[in-house]
């Protein structure tokens, strides 16, 4: 019995849902820009986990390619995000999300 | 295919003219494109007189079944000739010593293109597009080269026009949804919606508060376009759209509309009496004339309709003449306030002679183009009800009064001493001469123009909603 038969797909779904919601909760709660960024990374990983799981279930590698591309995008995103935070830090000497309210309506 | 050329050419020349920056170059280009456009229109008029009906149809958006359908009938072609002549006058009379003349002439040509499209379009969808398109250039012209209070005027102008086109859109959608066969009550609703759109554009009495400011604030070429042709769009809206899509509505409420139009006639002519500014007098007088034309369009008699279409042409000519003279005076004395003007007749007899002829044209003096139109229109109103004819006839008396007051305030009297010398340049002399001769010419031999707009040309093509 291969590994995949033993674990029904629902479990993976629930696991990635939990991690995703924890990440979402982190984004909502934390005021620190860095932790928000980390939580976003976590949400991405939850999705990637699911993708890989289902690529196994469907025997189709294109999902893994998708994961590969998501990783690339995430890397680029973190890089740009961090630079923006550093610039904002230089400007407002704080990386508290609520202080950055200049673009108000 | 020439119709497409007639419509697209102004847009192309407008785009080109946006890139020109030198004063001489942009004016030369504007003149060239205006005359080419004029040639194209007259050539299509020739074709129309041979073939009897010009149309071109190109499928455009298949999914909605909307076609680029341009079809021209007698009175539409008459309006296209008008919207070729008036810009020509505007360009000839405008001096190019202004900020970025290229875009100025570009906007004028763009407006001309929008008007050509509107007059030639044969389906409601295109009608709406060009109806909207014509507001844009006038707004930018007002903002770019307007008078002192141009911001407020521009806002009022755009708000009114867009409210009108919104009503038009609502009516259009209703007609489109019901696939052309509109129930009786539907026609009433559609009629009211279209009427609002048209009443704002003409303008009729309660919807006119944008008009005096716009006429006063815009520079003279735009005023010529707005007063000369844009107001005729409203009237054309009645002919093309309302009478086709909401005939029952028109029949049912024609008396109310005529009543409203007569109120705007009396209101316009009585207010023109007390205006202090040259252009505001023209604004209110054209409010009165447009009211008369709208009223006679609804009179339902073929003479009334034909007279009003003929009057559209003659009113455009008169208004263009008046505004041009206003511009000449403004250029030399720097003011158009009636209190500060006077005594120009002794300085330039030619200008005062042309001014007198144009005034006579606009108050409907026999042997001028105004008289033929007024008589036919008053006849149309008379056949609806004699009282309407009497009330509308009052505009003749009041017209004489405020026009003579204008003539006297501007031309007669001693005039203040520091009035500059009034030698007209050759282009002005020729232009005004052409206007004068054509006013009297149209008055003595109106038949060729009247044959052009015979009502038989109404029935040829029924412009459906989108095909």
């Amino acid at each position: 019995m291969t590994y995949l038969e033993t674990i029904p797909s629902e479990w993976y779904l629930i696991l990635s849902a939990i991690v995703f919601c924890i990440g979402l909760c982190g984004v909502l709660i934390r005021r620190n820009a860095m932790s928000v960024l980390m939580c976003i990374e976590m949400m991405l990983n939850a999705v990637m986990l699911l993708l890989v799981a289902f690529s196994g279930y469907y025997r189709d590698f294109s999902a893994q390619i998708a994961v590969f591309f998501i990783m690339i995008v995430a890397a680029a995103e973190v890089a740009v995000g961090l630079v923006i935070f550093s610039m904002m830090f230089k400007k407002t000497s704080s990386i508290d999300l609520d202080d950055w309210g200049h673009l108000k309506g | 295919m020439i119709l497409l050329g007639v419509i697209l050419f102004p847009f192309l020349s407008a785009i080109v003219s946006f890139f020109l920056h030198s004063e001489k170059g942009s004016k030369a280009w504007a003149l060239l494109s205006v005359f080419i456009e004029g040639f194209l229109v007259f050539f299509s008029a020739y074709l129309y007189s041979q073939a009897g009906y010009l149309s071109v149809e190109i499928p455009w958006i298949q999914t909605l079944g909307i076609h680029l359908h341009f079809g021209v009938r007698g009175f539409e072609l008459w309006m296209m000739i008008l919207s070729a002549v008036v810009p020509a006058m505007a360009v000839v009379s405008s001096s190019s010593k202004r900020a970025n003349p290229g875009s100025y002439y570009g906007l004028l040509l763009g407006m001309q293109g929008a008007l050509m499209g509107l007059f030639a379009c044969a389906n409601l969808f295109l009608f709406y597009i060009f109806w909207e398109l014509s507001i844009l250039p006038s707004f930018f012209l007002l903002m770019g080269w307007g008078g002192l209070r141009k911001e407020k005027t521009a806002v009022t102008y755009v708000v009114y026009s867009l409210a009108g086109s919104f009503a038009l859109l609502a009516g259009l959608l209703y007609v489109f949804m019901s696939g052309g066969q509109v129930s009786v009550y539907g026609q009433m609703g559609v009629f009211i919606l279209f009427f609002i759109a048209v009443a704002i554009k003409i303008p009729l009495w309660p919807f006119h508060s944008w008009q005096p400011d716009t006429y006063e604030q815009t520079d003279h070429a735009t005023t010529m376009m707005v007063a000369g042709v844009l107001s005729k769009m409203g009237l054309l809206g009645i002919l093309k759209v309302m009478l086709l899509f909401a005939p029952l509505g028109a029949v049912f409420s024609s008396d109310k509309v005529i009543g409203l139009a007569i109120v705007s006639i009396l209101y316009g002519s009585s207010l023109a009496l007390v205006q202090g500014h040259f252009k505001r007098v023209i604004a209110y007088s054209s409010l009165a004339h447009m009211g008369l034309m709208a009223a006679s369009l609804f009179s339902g008699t073929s003479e009334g309709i034909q007279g009003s279409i003929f009057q559209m042409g003659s009113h455009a000519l008169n208004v263009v003449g008046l505004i041009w003279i206003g511009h000449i005076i403004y250029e030399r004395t720097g003011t158009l306030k009636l209190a500060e003007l006077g005594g120009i007749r002794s300085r330039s007899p030619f200008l005062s002679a042309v001014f007198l002829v144009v005034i006579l044209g606009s108050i409907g003096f026999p042997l001028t183009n105004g008289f033929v139109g007024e008589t036919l229109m008053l006849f149309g109103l008379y056949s609806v009800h004699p009282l309407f004819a009497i009330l509308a006839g009052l505009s003749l008396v009041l017209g004489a009064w405020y026009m003579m007051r204008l003539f006297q305030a501007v031309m007669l009297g001693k005039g203040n001493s520091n009035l500059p010398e009034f030698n007209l340049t050759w282009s002005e002399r020729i232009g005004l001469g052409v206007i004068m001769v054509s006013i009297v010419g149209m008055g003595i031999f109106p038949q060729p123009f009247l044959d052009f707009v015979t009502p038989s040309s109404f029935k040829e093509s029924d412009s459906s909603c989108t095909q």
Partner: protein
Amino acid sequence: MMLFGMIATLAFPLIGFFLITLLGRVLPRPVGGWLACVSVAGAFISAGTVLLTCESSATIGLFNWFEVGNVSAHFSILVDSLSLWMSVMITGVGGLIHVYALGYMKDDVRLNSFFAYFNLFVFFMLVLVLSDSFLGMFIGWEGVGLCSYLLIGFWYETHAYAIAAKKAFVMNRIGDLGFLFAILMMLFFWGTTQFSVVFIQGLGLGAGVLTAMTMGLLIGAVGKSAQIPLFTWLPDAMAGPTPVSALIHAATMVTAGVYLIARSHVLFSGAPLTSLMVVGLGVATAVFGALVALVQRDIKKVLAYSTMSQLGYMVSAAGFGAYSAALFHMTTHAFFKALLFLAAGNVIHGLHGEQDIFKMGGLRKKLPFTFVVFLIGTLAIVGCPPFSGFFSKDAILAEAFAYSRTVFVVLCVVSVMSSFYMFRLLFLTFFGNARYGEKHPHEGALVMQIPLAILAVLATVGGCLDWPQESILTPVLGVTLVVLALSGGVAYFIFGKQVDVLAKQPVSMGYRMLWNKFYVDEVYQRIIVGPFLSLSRGLNQYFEIFLGKLDVVSLRSVRWVGYPFKKMQDGNSGTYILVMTVGILCLLVGLFL
């Protein structure tokens, strides 16, 4: 022959007008004037030859103007005894006045434009008289109004003259509105305004409709011939140069109303109510004019009011059916009124613009020729037997006698009053002590004297044109002679002697009433013009501002509605994400559960 003659009559003044306007600057000064006189004379000769040679009446179609639906208008000349006679009179008297104007306007800077307008006026008057349809007549009708505007306001530098011109034009236009209304009715019923069609089918209409149509025509005539309601422009029209007053406001234009009524007598006879109105208006105007003329000081104003009262005569005559008498009186009136005006012009010219008769007097010695001519004119207008006035006025009085006693009595009283004010005018200007200070009046040039002489001859001989029946001659002769002697003596007794006239001005209420012409002008101003202007000013301020406010309010209400949504964008990215997650949650629930 007739075709060519008629077209020539019409064409001459038009060509004259164009020649003078176009070549105006090029021509040396007097040539423009002579050109005008030649063209009018040419028109006179061609009209005269056509009158003498051909008897049959005909219509010559020129060009069809416009045809729309079942409404059509053709422009063509109608040649019959009435129109021919009128055109001969117009061109004849017009020509003489042109010649006179050569002398009178010699030193005016804008001589050419003056004669251009004069020729244009004669052209439009001919169009009015000769056209064979009411629409054609309307062209002449308004054209004549325009020329009177241009000529009254000829010296446009002075503001008052320009206002008088505008007043004349607007008032004429009110009359034209009535005329146009009648034309619209004709177009509505028969699709054309051709005389032949209108007069044949005219009686077919119902009485009410016919009355309305004839009422329209009456309003037009009242507007043009300065009858009661629309007459205040005539005294102000004296602001124009004297030849203008002579030609337009005495001989030709003002008689257009009478011509209109005479021409459409078929319609008027079919509408008894309107002809009653016509008689009433005519008589009222005659009385009013005569009364006011009694006290006027300005020589031209006196003549203007006397024209008004004589017009009242003609209109009332046309009213009670005496069309031929009215036309005959119109002709003789044209002669002697033009004569009087031109003689007055001589006096004014001599006294360098002085028009107040209280500042004249004793001009008998200084201006003998003008005095003789003025005397002939006065005797003619008063109706002294040998002169033309007697015959034409008595023709009307005879018809009035046949029509109704009261009208006859009133008209007699009017003729007594008119003889009184004419003699008053004569004695004040030419007799008594010289009150004109150190001005030294001199006779006009020869070119001014010849037309005066010809007109004087016409005024005397004019009577024999239509020799009345013998029957009424003898008794009426005696009565008029007695009346004349009486009024002449009284006038001489009051004004003739070397008396200081200024002191004698009575200041009674009646006098002041007459002096300000019953305050009619002020009444119009306060009842019609004033409130109308203030209404439009009020509308202009308050209503336009109200509309302006309406726009601002509607714009502001849109912003007020949008404001709460604006507050939500508070810049805190946290709340944005929270709202977004709530949105996603709702989507999830909505779509999948």
